[in-house]
């Protein structure tokens, strides 16, 4: 189904959080303030790498209006955080390892006073050599950033004998692909409000993708029981993975506890840039070979990932990349290695696509090069080598079987844009200026959902009939723009036949919601769907049984409906939900908890469920300016049933825009461990001018009949294949292979014909 408003009919709904968003009425957590609050500020490192000889805070503390100046000495519990491995200091003690490292936290009457105080803190550093090249960082003589050395994590996967495989190959392609340090650039920078309560509890209003994970980490830092902390975590002005790790929370929490007063924090953009996560820059070397007929025989990959100063999810991202450089293709011989390296560059971490974007750019680049070498159509070449329905996953692990790969492949092969490509090869656009060249390219992916084997991946939720007659749907997921509330509302309406007025959705508050796991890895919609499937029968049964007693009719003659209980075969309202709630009996609550389904393999990180997707793009290259412009896109996505058409379309469009930035515009350039771009004047993300072309989204909903896993995630796939498709289109347009992103205009610039010597 081509997804748009017309084809969606009544399923195209206004989001429940929409009216407050368009009127400015919605209070984001960084919009909150209370009387007598103080302003919090973090003093960060001047150097990317230095030993700390001394920190003096006396002058700062004496400043009028300053309430607290905290250093590592004031951290009562574990002075470190990190989702996977807590090795990032809350406040540095002996050493700083990047320009975002925090040294002191200040609370003052106003931001201006806090800034003044920060200037009065005296720190003596011994500057150390900056380790900014991940390759050099691995050499034995490099400065070691952590006790275990500079390699955070290594991966390997082998099948067959790759050397022997290459000996049999007729065609071999070898290339090295580079991808940039991309910035999330969520519009709402990090911040929030930290309120100590009279009961001794701390309430944290600060955006995050996993409130319970924050609570656990803050409890560890503050050395208090988890029950002493309440995290309120939604709504969020964008995250894309960037707010999954703690950011300002440790500082706000410490300052609130120390001063006993509410603390407001809201990062400036520069603060957000220097301290925030980025997409892991990767260097991916690939050698891939085929036999004479074009069948893949051998594939050798080595991935070098710059993880920056601390672990965050560097190992997990590398695992994901390692899986996705293998992807949906069959190889007899395979040898993949990866290493994630500590450096003094900016923090790398989780970012939409989770290492898939880098991997797929390289892998699809190889497929295009091989096809060309063989003189084959690139899509035919992919088909020849693509996984069959019952093939194992990339790591030879059992996966959920679907026809997604075939369907996506066929959708692209048949779409008008791809067919136009074949015409382009033979005809030149005579109307166009001679320096404007057009090309069409496509790329494919199978993208894993969920956290994968070996990582706790809990899910669940709760339904309750509240006293006021509202049906409460309570989940531990977060709304950061992706349309989670809209998806939940739509499922409740469509699966239970409630009206939107019957429903109250509650998310993002650790005091109320069950732990449903992290809102990440394209998993939330799928896990809410699954939860509702599990809750549907017990919850409906209880409601109907209670109703049956009340209206004195057999259960079989009743059904749930809009506004209340109705007769099974009529639309007459027999009992409102409010009346039902008031009817005597025990409260009606149903809860479920389970885990994201995983593969029966021991390979950590291997996935079980995949979304298949591909994109075709038409690109125009201006060979005078060297700028490439995306004119048109066609996305085919096989992710099971469409839960919320507007949200699905929006996620693909939004992900694709982010990938367009990744491919053509964005790079957080660093010079010796310092960021060059500090704000949005020099770090450029796509604007409306960059996105004027048509985007079509084909949603392939088909799943095998016995499949009960339901909808797969679409939060990431829109962003994964765009860059390699652009690279392929550029190749067709002007004959140049792109190996480094973002594409440098100088690569595409050509001497104008009238300047060329005859």
């Amino acid at each position, binding site marked *: 189904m081509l997804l748009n408003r017309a084809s969606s009919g009544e399923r195209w709904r206004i989001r429940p959080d929409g*009216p407050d968003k*368009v009127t400015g009425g919605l209070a984001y957590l960084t919009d909150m303030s209370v009387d007598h609050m103080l302003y919090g500020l973090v003093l960060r490192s001047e150097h990317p790498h230095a030993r700390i000889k001394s920190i003096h805070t006396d002058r700062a503390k004496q400043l009028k209006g300053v309430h607290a100046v905290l250093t590592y000495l004031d951290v009562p519990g574990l002075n470190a955080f990190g989702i996977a491995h807590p090795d990032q200091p809350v406040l540095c003690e002996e050493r700083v390892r990047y320009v975002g490292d925090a040294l002191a936290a200040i609370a003052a009457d106003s931001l201006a006073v806090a800034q003044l105080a920060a200037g009065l803190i005296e720190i003596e550093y011994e500057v150390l050599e900056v380790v900014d090249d991940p390759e050099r960082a691995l050499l034995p003589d490099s400065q070691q950033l952590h006790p275990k050395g500079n390699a955070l994590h290594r991966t390997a996967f082998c099948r067959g004998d790759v050397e022997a495989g290459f000996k049999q190959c007729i065609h071999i392609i070898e290339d090295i692909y580079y991808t940039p340090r991309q910035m999330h650039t969520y519009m709402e920078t990090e911040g929030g409000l930290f309120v100590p309560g009279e009961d001794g509890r701390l309430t944290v209003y600060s955006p995050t993708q996993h409130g319970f994970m924050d609570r656990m980490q803050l409890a560890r830092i503050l050395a208090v029981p988890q029950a002493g902390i309440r995290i309120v975590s939604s709504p*969020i002005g964008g995250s894309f993975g960037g707010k999954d790790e703690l950011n300002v929370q440790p500082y706000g929490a410490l300052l609130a506890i120390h001063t006993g007063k509410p603390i407001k924090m809201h990062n*400036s*953009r520069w603060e957000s840039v220097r301290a925030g996560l980025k997409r892991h820059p990767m260097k991916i070397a690939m050698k891939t070979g085929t036999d004479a007929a074009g069948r893949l025989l051998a594939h050798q990959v080595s991935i070098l990932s710059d993880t920056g100063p601390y672990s965050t999810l560097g190992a997990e991202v590398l695992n994901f990349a390692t899986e996705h450089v293998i992807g949906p293709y069959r190889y007899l011989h395979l040898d993949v290695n990866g290493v994630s390296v500590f450096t003094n560059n900016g923090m790398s971490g989780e970012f939409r696509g989770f290492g898939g974007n880098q991997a797929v750019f390289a892998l699809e680049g190889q497929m295009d090069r091989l096809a060309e070498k063989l003189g084959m159509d690139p899509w035919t070449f992919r088909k020849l080598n693509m996984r069959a329905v019952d093939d194992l996953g990339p790591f030879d692990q059992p996966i959920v079987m679907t026809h997604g790969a075939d369907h996506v492949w066929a959708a692209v092969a048949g779409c008008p844009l791809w067919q136009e490509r074949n015409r382009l090869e033979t005809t030149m656009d005579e109307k166009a200026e001679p320096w404007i060249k057009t090309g069409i390219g496509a790329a494919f992916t199978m993208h894993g959902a969920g956290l994968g084997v070996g990582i706790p991946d809990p899910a669940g939720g709760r339904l309750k009939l509240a006293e006021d007659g509202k049906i409460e749907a309570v989940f531990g997921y977060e709304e950061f723009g992706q349309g989670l509330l809209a998806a939940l509302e739509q499922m409740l309406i469509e699966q239970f036949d409630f009206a939107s007025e019957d429903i109250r959705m509650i998310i993002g508050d650790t005091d109320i919601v069950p732990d449903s796991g992290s809102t990440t890895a394209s998993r939330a919609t799928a896990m809410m769907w699954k939860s509702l499937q599990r809750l549907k029968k017990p919850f409906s049964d209880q409601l109907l049984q209670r109703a049956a007693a009340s209206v004195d009719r057999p259960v079989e003659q009743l059904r749930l409906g809009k506004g209340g209980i109705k007769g099974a075969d009529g639309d007459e309202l027999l009992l409102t939900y409010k009346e039902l709630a008031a009817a005597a009996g025990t409260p009606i609550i149903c809860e479920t908890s389970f885990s994201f389904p995983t593969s029966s393999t021991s390979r950590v990180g291997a996935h079980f469920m995949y979304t298949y997707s591909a994109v075709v793009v038409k690109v125009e290259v201006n060979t005078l300016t060297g700028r490439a412009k995306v004119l048109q896109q066609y996305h085919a996505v096989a992710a099971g049933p469409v839960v919320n058409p507007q949200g699905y379309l*929006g996620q693909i469009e*939004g992900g694709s825009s982010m990938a367009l930035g990744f491919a053509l515009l964005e790079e957080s350039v660093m010079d010796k461990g310092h960021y060059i771009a500090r704000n*949005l004047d020099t770090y450029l993300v796509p604007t409306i001018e960059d996105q004027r072309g048509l985007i079509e989204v084909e949603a392939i909903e088909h799943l095998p009949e016995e499949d009960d896993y339901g909808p797969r995630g679409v939060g990431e796939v829109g962003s994964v294949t765009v860059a390699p498709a652009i690279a392929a289109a550029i190749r067709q347009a002007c004959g140049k292979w792109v190996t480094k992103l973002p594409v440098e205009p100088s690569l595409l610039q050509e001497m104008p014909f009238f300047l060329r010597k005859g």
Partner: protein
Amino acid sequence: MSNKAVEEGVPYSLHCFINEGEESIKTAPSTRLLTILRDELKLTGTKRSCDIGRCGACMVLIDGKAVNSCLAMAYQCSGKHITSIEGVALQGIDYIQQAFLEEGGFQCGYCTPGMIVSVKALLDDNSEPTDDEIAEALSGNICRCTGYGGIWRAVKQAVERKRQLLAMEQKEELI
């Protein structure tokens, strides 16, 4: 921060009209309008993101023109009529906001108030903008979530609504 300004005896007092109400605010002449709106008046619909006039999240109308409130200082607002997103919605959701709702012109919504203010400035001034004019008017508003597809659809729908509204007005005048 204007409390501090008052304590320090800063003599500046800003008189202006904000969302139709008359305001008199003691502040420093260089306080940014963004700070006044968000921190003093608690009008947090106007968002803060880059602080340097690049992202458009803080866009407001000053005498009908779209202006980045992070770049406008108090003294520059003296006597002016300022409309923030709260002012756009004073009479309830207007046709531009409705178009954003129906077409999915937002996701996280953080850029949305600024985006809508920019669209309003455009359509108040030019009811039949070309695509180039739309792109130009919105090129100072960054949205990281939507990919702009929904925003394009919303603006097109708003232009259509505006055309209908104008036609209706004309009809009424004729009667």
